């Protein structure tokens, strides 16, 4: 039935991603192919983060998938030195940022891998990274675009 987990389900932050669990399963399928995507309302053309099944602006329920830029710039960042949630406590310190996607008004929150807090600045360029999780799941982070 479900997908295998590394942790008790109530402590596993990563969503169930397959078609039997979620209507936005294409987001995860696209991510597996290196594409960061979201939904665009077929009626009012609203593009929202995160992907939706109903448009909160016009109440329409027809959505199409669109690609978001795979590069961006750091708008704000910090690093978690202590107080990480269960399953992430061995990763400290890790950098979290708000990333402004290139040429888009859209921002996303994500971890930035392969860089320390001291070596990052507001405005630095970053590019998408897809990570593999237990049970064939995936998630996205970013990397410095060096």
């Amino acid at each position, binding site marked *: 039935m479900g997908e295998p987990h590394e942790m008790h389900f109530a*402590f596993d932050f990563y969503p169930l991603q397959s078609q039997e669990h979620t209507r936005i399963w294409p987001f995860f399928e696209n991510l597996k192919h290196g594409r960061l995507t979201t939904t665009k309302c077929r009626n009012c053309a609203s593009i929202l983060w995160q992907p939706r099944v109903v448009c909160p602006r016009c109440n329409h329920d027809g959505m199409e998938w669109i690609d978001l830029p795979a590069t961006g710039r750091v708008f704000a960042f910090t690093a*978690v030195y202590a107080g990480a*949630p*269960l399953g992430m406590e061995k990763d400290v310190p890790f950098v979290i940022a*708000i990333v402004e996607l290139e040429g888009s008004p*859209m921002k996303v*929150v994500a971890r930035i891998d392969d860089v320390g807090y001291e070596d990052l600045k507001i405005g630095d360029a970053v590019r998408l990274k897809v990570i593999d999780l237990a049970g064939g799941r995936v998630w996205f982070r970013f990397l410095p675009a060096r």
Partner: protein
Amino acid sequence: MRKVAIVGTGMTKWGVRAATYREIVQEVGKDLFDEVPNLEKRDVDSLFVGSALVDRLAFQAYPAPLVAEQLGLTPTRLAMRTEMACVSGQSAIRVAYASIACGLSDVAVVVGAEKMNIPSMPEIQSSMACVLDREWDGVNGLNAPPYFALVAQRHMHEYGTTEEQLAEVSVKNHDYAATNPYAHFPKRVTKEKVLGSPKIAPPLKLLDCSGITDGAAAVLMTHGDAARRYTDTPVFIEGLGQSQSGSLVVNLENLTTWNPLKRAAAEAFRMAGVTIHDMDLAETHDCFTISEIMEYEDLGLCEKGKGGEFVMDGQSRIGGELPTNLRGGLLGCGHPLGATGVAQAIEVVRQFRAQVPEERSVGGEWGLCHNLSGNANNHAVMILHRGS
């Protein structure tokens, strides 16, 4: 609508308590009921319980009947839990206000209680991360300290706020907490100690962050005509405002200006017919040092971006423009989520009644309570007035 008053108060010691959720609830009930000997428990027709993470941290859903049983209450009009994360406490007071004002309830007990400390810190932090949108924000390891660190970094970037200015908020609030026997951290700290405390999420250090704290606070509320049955010094709720903005971090209106706070305060002041400059004291939600700096600005106490200077100038200390967080704030008292909003109101009530230690006593007639929750996407403001 009827006038609504707070007519009784109860507190427990806050800290890492060798006590369970239900034991803390019993303690706060005793403190409240001891203070109002004229209260017959059978006259309490309503009960509102502000507990945010009781499901995850005390492994107990549906706490209202449990609290009623621990307190020996059998509500007949309205009993419920109010859950709004860190605003759960003020939410309980607001729902009690609404129920009493409209005539459904006559006498209500409000309890804010939280048992936060369990043996596993990562489990606590996981539960705190679920206060944010778990699947899109929490999943990235974001919980309260890194979120408010992003806010602090942007505020420093946009307005030139400094780590020294952040530290001064912690120094001030610990100074006042040292006068508060209920506080989790009743001890003064120096600026050097704040700046040198362990990194949590830069630019925030340990002493920029409120603690993980067990504790409870409770008030008795009734309508204006009944208030003097229970106390000679009722404190009236004259204004209430609440406003929200989004859920996901990237969908907030603005990271460094809290528009929902501005709207909530405007609504509360309009309802009470007063302004920020009429306030004699304020309890604002200093979950992190940056929060209090932005609260000065967005409450209109100083120009935008000048909150750091406001605290450095002593304007939020006794003798300044508006004495703020005299019980020691969340930084000094700790932050048992559902209890905080209730304890803020109790500080104002006890100030009006001259029941606080001399060192932090300002008395006064008008007080403001501000509670925020989540990624600051929800702000609640309440204006209290000393009954004449």
